């Protein structure tokens, strides 16, 4: 369990801890198509880590590997000092990894608060018989979790839509509800799949602020995907760049921005 890798201090003075998750030489294939080729990087405790790259670079595939939707053919995933065996996504959720989706995956038939409450699913332990009767220990439990969810809803400033069915909400708010649901799981590692995609400038700024606040107030480690480089530069502590499933660069935003391979991938070069 002991981790020997040293942490570091960011420019804004946040202390980043040891390695939480390490991807070692990950290769992922779908039949003959290679989505990810030999990619290795780590995510440290308390860090905001970005995975960027042009469309089709394998970013979402990488997130799906971390979250257990995909199982890589080669390579190892290490989480909190242990090599992680191949396991289904719901068990990975149990280990403290939550996520959002690029194309918003909310429970459309439910209201905002109900959606957020599903994030507490794993923490509710009481017998369903008590839950059915709404009595005793089950009621206490329900109230406790409900209170926590209300706090998260306040934190993300979506009180006004608490009881609105999410299917009818505008896109930007749906993204926020999805983030609230992930936060309700009190994850150790939060995965965000293009949290700013399809948003206008104002919504993007709001979302950036929430991501920073989540990291700051809850100490949550965050790994996010983005194809828009400018968004990531202000947000991330370290950035790994993928292109056509291969790793182009890994480093601080400044380092990555100066990397010639990255510039070529984004601007395109004549070969």
């Amino acid at each position, binding site marked *: 369990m002991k981790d020997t890798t040293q942490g570091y201090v960011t420019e804004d003075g946040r202390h980043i801890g040891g390695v939480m998750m390490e991807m070692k030489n990950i290769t992922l294939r779908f039949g003959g198509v290679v989505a990810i080729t030999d990619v290795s990087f780590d995510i440290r405790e308390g860090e905001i880590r970005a995975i960027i790259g042009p469309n089709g670079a394998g970013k979402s595939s990488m997130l799906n590997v971390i979250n257990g939707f995909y199982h890589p053919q080669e390579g190892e995933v290490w989480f909190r000092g242990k090599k992680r065996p191949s396991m289904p996504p*719901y068990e990975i959720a149990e280990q403290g990894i939550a*996520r959002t*989706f690029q194309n918003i995956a909310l429970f*459309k038939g439910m209201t905002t608060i109900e959606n957020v409450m*599903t*994030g507490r*699913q794993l923490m509710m332990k*009481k017998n*369903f018989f008590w839950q059915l009767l709404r009595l005793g220990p089950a009621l206490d439990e329900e109230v406790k979790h409900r209170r926590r969810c209300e706090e998260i809803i306040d934190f993300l400033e979506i009180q006004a839509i608490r009881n609105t069915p999410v299917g009818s909400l505008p896109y930007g708010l749906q993204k926020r509800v999805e983030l609230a649901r992930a936060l309700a799981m009190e994850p150790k590692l939060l995965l965000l799949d293009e949290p700013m995609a399809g948003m206008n400038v104002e919504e993007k700024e709001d979302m950036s602020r929430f991501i920073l606040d989540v990291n700051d107030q809850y100490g949550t480690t965050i790994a996010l995907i983005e194809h828009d480089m400018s968004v990531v530069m202000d947000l991330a502590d370290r950035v790994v760049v993928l292109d056509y499933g291969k790793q182009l660069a890994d480093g601080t935003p400044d380092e990555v921005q100066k990397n010639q391979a990255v510039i070529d991938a984004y601007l395109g070069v004549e070969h």
Partner: protein
Amino acid sequence: MSGIFYDVLADPFLQMWQMPDFFIQVLWEGFVSGILYALIALGFVLIFKASGIFNFAQGIMVVFSGLTLVGLHALGVPAFVALIITLGVMYVLAYLVERLVLRNLVNQPDIILFMATIGLTNILIGGGQWIFGGETKSMITAELMIPTGSSVWEPGGGIVIFQHIDIAAALIAAMLIVGLALFFSKTKVGRALRAVADDHQASLSVGISLNQIWVITWFAAGIVALVAGIMWGARSDVSFSLQIIALKALPVLVLGGFTSVPGAIVGGLIIGIGEKLFEIYWGPLFGSGVEGWFAYVIALVFLLFRPQGLFGEKIIERV
């Protein structure tokens, strides 16, 4: 005064007016079969909501559970113990279906899963006949303490007969439906079921095991099938021809919407009552056997004008 318009538009209502006690009797009979249709449709809705599968085997599950119960009792097992063992058998069936069928066919097109349930139907028919034999059996009504007498109500000189077994069927069905509604809205597992019905990936991401939920839904559908099997069996007999009535669930579902529990109930009642009224008052115009096709005609009309059913989710395509 005669003619087609009189026969269709006036005479039936005149008859209803002239013999109100008989009219009430017809309504009641329709209501009871409507409840039983609703029960069967409910089994379909549970599985369709959780996994998007139209479970063709729901009808044979009704027969199979009924036969298991009767068969166990014939071996000398006390009625209520047999009931509990039958519940266990339905759980094992749900588990095996998940393990052997669903798990291996996950993410396949709906039609593949539908075909798999047809396969399951044939296995249950074959297996059922092998284990229990093909002959008709009578439900152990008295042993399960289901009342069998009847009460007579005489409103203003008329006469309406209520079979106790029908009253029991209505009550038990109502309790089951309320129980399921509470289970869905109040419990953690119910919340997980609704989550899975909405979005598989999102459910996985919050830590819900689809496999576990599928076992639970198939088991719930198995319980509903068992209750339907007991009640139908008590009114007629337990035989393999019972599975034909399960086809009646199809118009009920078209009417109520494939994803709506209240829809299944209302749809069942409309089909049950509508069919009986039509049979009695309009049936003579068509000759006999109206009950056999009336429900499907209603379903057809609905498909033309409201394909999502009364309570189904609206089909909106964003462009």
